[in-house]
């Protein structure tokens, strides 16, 4: 018996890591018109970006249903001391809400702790990984809960987008509306803060955007964990990861991850993100 970790697909955890640490990922739904897909199950990232680039109808996303969470909690809960269920910002998605309701209704004997990370992508994924590693080493419910809370508080996400178009059309733009301008082409740089998308910078060239991204990261000092997330440019992400690894402790490698279909719907092709957990006090 152990503590089990559940998350949703907007955490963008690479599947081999989810497998290795026994993390259950509940997929979000991506819809193109009447075609419905499950994030990462029957719709790959490659396919999503191909369709975004080809133009035509833009997809919409929706959170996993209460039923889907119920099914997961009841299955996972059969042989668990407890479930820690860690999710995308409730201000961006109804996922947390679905999970909360499912946790009330689930007929399981163990406690279910549902966490709103106020984050997205690997800024969810990194705390999830920290929790899963502790759980795998036998940490109890309280201990895993404390690890998650601490990591979530120190978890950050900044991203440089090829265009603001997808965030805007997807209705998740929030205060980054300030970046919208029609006269000049810019590569918007955004940050997730207190669960919301905020504007950060308006670089006009990609090169300058990457510089801004690195500068913003380096200002945070020592790091506990780092992930570089890409939508279509894997080489760029790997290069950036090796460049930024210096702020990590010895032996800790940055994780290169991919914006999956659900988040990809909003960040669009070419996006590069940094998720990181700053070193604790």
């Amino acid at each position, binding site marked *: 018996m152990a503590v089990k970790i559940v998350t949703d697909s907007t955490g963008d955890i690479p599947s081999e890591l989810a497998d290795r640490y026994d993390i259950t990922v509940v997929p979000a739904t991506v819809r193109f018109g009447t075609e419905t897909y499950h994030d990462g199950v029957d719709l790959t990232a490659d396919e999503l970006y191909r369709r975004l680039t080809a133009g035509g109808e833009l997809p919409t996303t929706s959170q996993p249903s209460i039923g889907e969470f119920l099914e997961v909690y009841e299955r996972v809960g059969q042989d668990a001391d407890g479930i820690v269920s860690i999710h995308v910002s409730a201000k961006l998605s109804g996922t947390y809400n679905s999970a909360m309701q499912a946790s009330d209704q689930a007929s399981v004997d163990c406690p279910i702790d549902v966490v709103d990370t106020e984050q997205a992508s690997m800024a969810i994924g990194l705390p999830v990984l920290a929790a899963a590693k502790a759980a795998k080493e036998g940490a109890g419910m309280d201990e895993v809960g404390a690890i998650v809370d601490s990591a979530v508080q120190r978890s950050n996400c900044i991203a440089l987008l090829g265009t603001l178009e997808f965030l805007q059309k997807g209705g998740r733009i929030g205060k980054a509306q300030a970046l919208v301008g029609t006269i*000049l082409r*810019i590569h918007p740089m955004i940050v997730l803060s207190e669960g919301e998308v905020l504007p950060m910078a308006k670089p*006009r060239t990609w*090169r300058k955007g990457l510089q801004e991204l690195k500068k913003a990261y380096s200002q945070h000092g020592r790091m506990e964990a780092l992930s570089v997330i890409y939508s279509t440019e894997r080489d760029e992400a790997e290069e950036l990861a090796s460049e930024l690894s210096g702020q990590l402790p010895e032996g800790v490698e940055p994780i290169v991850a991919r914006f999956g279909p659900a988040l990809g719907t909003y960040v669009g092709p070419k996006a590069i993100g940094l998720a990181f957990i700053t070193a604790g006090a």
Partner: protein
Amino acid sequence: MSTDASTRLSAPETITGEQLREYVGFATELLRANVEVINSLNVFPVPDGDTGTNMFLTLDAVVKALDGPGERTAGEAAALMYDAAMMEARGNSGIILSQFFKGLAVGLEGSETLGASEMASALAEARTASYKAVANPVEGTMLTVIDWMARASAEAEAAGEPLAVMLSRIGAAAADAVANTPTMLAVLREAGVVDAGGHGLSVMFEGVRRAHAGEARPESAGVLEVPEAIGVDHSAVGAGVVSESFLAHAEHEEFGYCVQFVVEGEGLDVDAIRDRIMEVSQSTVVVGSSEAIRVHGHAEDPGPMISAAVAHGQLGRVSMQNMDEQHAEFAEAHRAAPPAADDAAPSTPGASSLVAVAWGDGLEDLFREYGSSGILTAGDTMNPSVAQIVEAVDAAPAQDVIFLPNNKNIIPAANQAAEVSNKTLHVVPTRTIPQGIAALLGYNAESGAEECAAAMTDAAADVSSGEVTTAQRTVSLNGVEAQEGQTIGLLDGALVAAGDGEAAVLAALLEAAGVEDELVTLYWGGGLDEDAAAEAAEAAQTEFPEAEFEVVRGGQPHYHLLVSIER
């Protein structure tokens, strides 16, 4: 100085506050008559010379400050003049002129009258204040002229010369200094011109000298000859800076009306219009580009002037004055547009507001769209005064205001505005529109103003600025030969290309900038249409396949293309 002996007898040895007002009034009138000539003394053959206009408007405000009843001492009059000069100063030359008046005010503090010794000490103070006003004082400019004037006054004082002789010596020193400016400043030498601001100061002082000597104000104060530039190979610079015919006509004394207007149209032939206007007016000045031409002339009957122009395009900013009347309307006609009040002020002020100077509807929209709460619309070639900047800044919603001058000649007035405004003004010293746009995109209303202004200053430094326009005269600069009417390209203020058509010049400009894979943004205006701008961009894309091009409507006057190059 053959007139010294005769004028010495009648000219007063000390000058009262009232006389000072009269003399400066005379000087203003003389300067007014020379505005266009001074404007034409432009280093670069681009159509934005406005030194004369800036100096005139500054001086005009100085004279107006002394209007109204009441006896004043010379010291009191000088103090009032300085206050006005400081608030109304526009352009680099206006700012230095205001510092000249500061020196005068300091030198005359507590003085009842102005005599030879006060004159000498006032000029010494003016020299100190003027040099201090400039971050990096450069010789061969107005500063040199002030320096030579101060020296001449000190020598005359030491020799115990009467005031009239001292003024003659100062005037002669000023003219000498002006003639020598090209020997000190390579850029003047290359362009084959004397320093415009220096000549303006010399003209102004000549007005004071004439007034003191008791010369009657002529109906038209007269255009003075520009001292011949020393150290310039005149055969190398092609056509003279100011047309011979203009000077020949301008020497006449005229009566009637002073008529000014702007002709706007397409493919205007400046020379042809000038020839037509010249037939029906005197003191004719016709300057401009194929899209906008400024016409100035004196005529007993203004009708034929108007008729001659109306066939070529639309007339605007028509001003007609009886030459007996004074110059108030002139100032009004040249005044920059008032700051647009309350432009799209955000409902909730952030930590700071942004106010920017912009020209042209496209650029004004752009600055608004990316966060400027106020736009100071300086008209073509017009620099806003310190007072106008203060007004625009005061109208902004936040207490902390970040200001983008977007023109190197507006930076001094902006700095002066920062000193007198009740708000906290952070001047980001953008010298060009492309720099201003780079800074603009770094603006964040929520972050601290000081920190934000510093980041914006850094952002501005990251772009190169280019301009494509029409050469206003034949010139050879930086080894580039440009014929009048040719298309020319300037990169960060230096002439780098001349040729025929925007596409060729743009390509040469980008070559000079060493463009490889940069983002090149072209803001089109100055009569160029979108198709022509897009064509130039396409041609450039072929030559610079790695670079990215973006074509944006600027709507700016004079400049066919403003070019931003950033990595």
